């Protein structure tokens, strides 16, 4: 079961459109299908298919709010993959490097 879940998460993340959908939810969570498909050049059916893959992987959770179905970003599966290979000791060094990368890129960009 944990292996199956990981496969689904990696598969879901291995697609630019699905990562874009997650980025949009990260910017503003709890969006409807209509809001999510707004800037995508794709049929509604296509967007729904991508959202279903994200939902099956647990990266998106849907809730009903009145007549609308809202989509929420669930970061827990990504955290679990993170925990598997990065322990508390390593985390500090990884964070320091990520910090350095961000600062250098801010300067050049």
């Amino acid at each position, binding site marked *: 079961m944990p292996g199956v879940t990981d496969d689904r998460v990696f598969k879901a993340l291995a697609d630019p459109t699905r990562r874009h959908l997650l980025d949009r939810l990260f*910017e503003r*969570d709890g969006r409807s299908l209509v809001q999510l498909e707004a800037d995508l050049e794709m049929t509604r059916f296509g967007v729904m298919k991508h959202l279903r893959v994200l939902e099956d992987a647990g990266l998106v959770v849907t809730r009903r709010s009145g007549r609308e179905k809202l989509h929420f970003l669930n970061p827990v599966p990504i*955290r679990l993959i993170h925990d598997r290979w990065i322990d508390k000791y390593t985390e500090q060094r990884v964070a320091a490097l990520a910090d350095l990368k961000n600062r250098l890129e801010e300067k050049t960009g």
Partner: protein
Amino acid sequence: MTTMTATTTQVYRVFIRATPEMIWDAITKPDFSEQYFHGVRLELRDGRRRSTLADGRSWDEAVLEEDPPRRLVHEWSAGYDPELAAEEPSRVTWEIEPRENGVSMLTVVHDRLEGAPKTAEAVSGEGWTFVLSTLKTFLETGTALA
């Protein structure tokens, strides 16, 4: 990481190889909760949910719904931090559903955060994500993350 505005409804979900009863105990009994919830001892008593920190400070929240082992709804106030505790109370819903192969699905909805923007920021991202991944590790292996 770019900044985001924490939203007033946040939803988190985790699949745990444990029965709904085990998850219910983990979120309502102090000896379990202190293993994964930042050392906080949680208990339900007389329609209240009491949180006690390791240093002895404690605070209460109203329990709005209690249906063991499937559903718990309570107010949330961040008694561990005076600045956050000064904000209006929000609401946390725990939903536990049994799935196949001894796995249960736990969904946490933290909403009504309109009057608590700093709390919304504090619990998003690392906050709930850390608690739920640690809860999963605790229930599946019997140990919390160091």
